[in-house]
């Protein structure tokens, strides 16, 4: 059996909430040994963010457990001398330490980079504060939506008719920062292999989020452009939109990228008399075309309509909600969901690794650990 790329890499995970835990979930999927370290006095807030009816609610949070699978749990109080001592003994056996505290916290705990280096000279430290470790905004406190706002991303989304910017429906800054942190860890491992030296990486989640809108920065710097809210439309193609289909809050996303796709869509949606409209006309009459498509779509079964349009070569997809996505035929066929047993919870569909290494074939191995489950093993 081929090994996963990060087998043999051990990571001390001090992260909390979502950005860091998302990073370490991906690193675990790639084979790294992740030891999640929490204080017995202040565990990861996500454990108890939502009320749960369970004798041990801190072990029964689906939010926490979904992102903690394939990790080990160690409880240490870094605010106490004994906790720090044990932590540094453990760091000596780790390749990487990763944390997403506010900028000043790690130093205040007395376990900053120089201290870590004494424990392990070639240690890699990845710090992922919201706004970085330096600069005049280093002390800002930020969660995903704030990172998204402060990175320019929220300014780019809106329906277009009310001037209101919209944040993403998830705390988008977190997983984007998490993915960047995975890149940081691996890049540092590659560098260490060559130089035999560790490194301290200062990852500002706001900056990784800003990467996701690079062209908007180019437009702003070249032409002074301000954000334009397109709703679900495309800046150039037409029509494009999200149209109601049968069922409660069910929608179909459709794009017509060129004349041929529009002709096919016009035919399928009963608007054949408009099939010859050139792009300029389609753009000018977008509202009218939307109304025609809606008149057709609202009685259509979402899955059947998607399949029918795709059969004609038209880009279309159901807007899958947070429940339907677990029953999407394509994801089921790809075995995208796994049901792992957990001692405090009924199984729920957990995502397979999105990084499908066809030969190494990463698989979910263990459900999320109970709080402190691996103390004895590790210490």
């Amino acid at each position, binding site marked *: 059996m081929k090994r996963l790329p990060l087998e043999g890499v051990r990571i001390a995970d001090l992260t909390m909430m979502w950005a860091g835990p998302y990073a370490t979930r991906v690193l675990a999927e790639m084979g790294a040994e992740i030891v999640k370290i929490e204080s017995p006095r202040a565990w990861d807030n996500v454990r108890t963010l939502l009320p749960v009816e369970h004798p041990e609610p801190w072990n029964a949070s689906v939010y926490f457990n979904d992102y903690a699978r394939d990790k080990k749990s160690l409880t240490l109080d870094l605010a106490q001398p004994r906790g720090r001592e044990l932590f540094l003994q453990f760091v000596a056996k780790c390749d990487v330490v990763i944390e997403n505290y506010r900028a000043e916290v790690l130093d205040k705990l007395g376990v900053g980079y120089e201290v870590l280096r004494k424990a392990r000279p070639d240690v890699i430290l990845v710090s992922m504060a919201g706004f970085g470790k330096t600069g005049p905004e280093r002390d800002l406190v930020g969660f995903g939506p704030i990172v998204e706002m402060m990175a320019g991303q929220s300014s780019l989304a809106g329906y277009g008719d009310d001037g209101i910017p919209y944040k993403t429906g998830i705390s988008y800054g977190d997983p984007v920062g998490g993915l960047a942190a995975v890149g940081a860890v691996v890049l540092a491992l590659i560098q260490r292999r060559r130089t035999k030296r560790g490194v301290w990486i200062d990852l500002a989640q706001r900056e990784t989020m800003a990467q996701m809108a690079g062209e908007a920065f180019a437009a702003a710097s070249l032409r002074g452009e301000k954000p334009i809210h397109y709703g*679900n439309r495309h800046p150039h193609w037409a029509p494009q939109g999200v*149209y109601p289909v049968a069922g409660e809050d069910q929608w*179909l996303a459709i794009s017509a990228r060129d004349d041929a796709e529009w002709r096919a869509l016009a035919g399928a949606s009963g608007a054949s008399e408009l099939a010859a409209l050139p792009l300029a006309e389609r753009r000018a009459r977008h509202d009218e075309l939307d109304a025609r498509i809606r008149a057709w779509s609202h009685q259509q079964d979402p899955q059947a309509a998607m399949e029918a349009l795709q059969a004609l070569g038209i*880009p279309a*997809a159901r807007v*899958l909600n947070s429940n339907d996505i677990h029953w999407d035929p394509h994801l089921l066929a790809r075995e995208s969901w796994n049901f792992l047993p957990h001692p405090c919870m009924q199984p729920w569909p957990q995502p397979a690794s999105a990084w499908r290494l066809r030969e190494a074939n990463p698989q979910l191995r263990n459900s999320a650990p109970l709080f402190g489950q691996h103390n004895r093993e590790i210490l």
Partner: protein
Amino acid sequence: MCVAEACENPSRMSELPLAGMRVLEIGGGVAAAFATRFLAGYGADVVRSEGAHGALTGDEEAALLGGKRRIAASDAQLRALALAADALVEDGMPGALAARGLDPLALRAAKPALVITSLTAFGQHGPYANYEATNLVAHAAGGIHSLTGVRTRPPLQNGANQALKLLGMNGFGATLTAYYGAQLQGEGDWLDISAQECAAGMLELYGPKSGLDGVPCPRLGNRTNAVWGLYPASDGYAGVCTLHRQVPALFALIGDPALQEPKFMDPLERIKDDRELGDKVQAWFAPRSKAELVELGAKHKVPIGAVMTPLDLLSNASLNERGFFDEVETPGGRARVPGRMFLGIDWRAGALATPGADTAAVIRDWLGAGGAR
């Protein structure tokens, strides 16, 4: 420093962590271009074979193509270049590479250390594998779309091609990871990464919760609850995101004595009066500027942010002090675009080459004199 400058300065090149790594980018869309952007910046020799005309806008080229060499090569030359590469990153439809004589399985068999990263909307297999997709379509299939926007209106897409960027961000990390594995084990892999799965597995608490209780989560617009949302400010929009432990600081900042009542202080009671609380928070935000709100948040350790535009951020003191932006010469002038992903590892800002400009040099460098012939 651009690619050419770095090449002329071997000591500088050798400091970059990916110096010596060769990456071939085929496809030319946003996803592949985004993934390899950062490989180039951290030192890899990234060679881009252009995609369809207009696959990237001029602004996307400025943001994503700096530091890459750009070639126009035949399929036979691309196959030879793939076998001379450490990684091939592509975002064509499933089967498109094989149709050009670049079958990933055959390439892997011929060069086991090669990493091939295939970035698509729906992956290499499954019922939708050959579905046509745009950013919107991929976004819709991934679940984030359904959660964004307000309940009384359709789901709303994010700006700036987020489904494709997210796919590219995954492609960056995954390619690096597989490359690291190849360095250790001598064997690469073929990575099948789909935009749909990248998003479907990161639906915050909403995905797992719905998976457990079978109930879809609604779109909550800009306000998850009164202490986690966006509000109008005097000069735009700002927002607050507080955990329960941070709520007292927010309430102290607002200064309304009524907020000390149990119905607002108790997290389980608070949600029952969320609208009333939201009105109070909104009234406090409304007369204040974004800058004032952000400053107050920092001073009182309340997580407050403001909706900034890219234009605002170009003059942001923190980003500029941290050297975040690269400058790229484009046909339309000098663009400023996001540069290094993080600090601590050397990065090079690269020049924007013209399409096909580097064909002869790349074939010479990667394939030698025989390849050039």
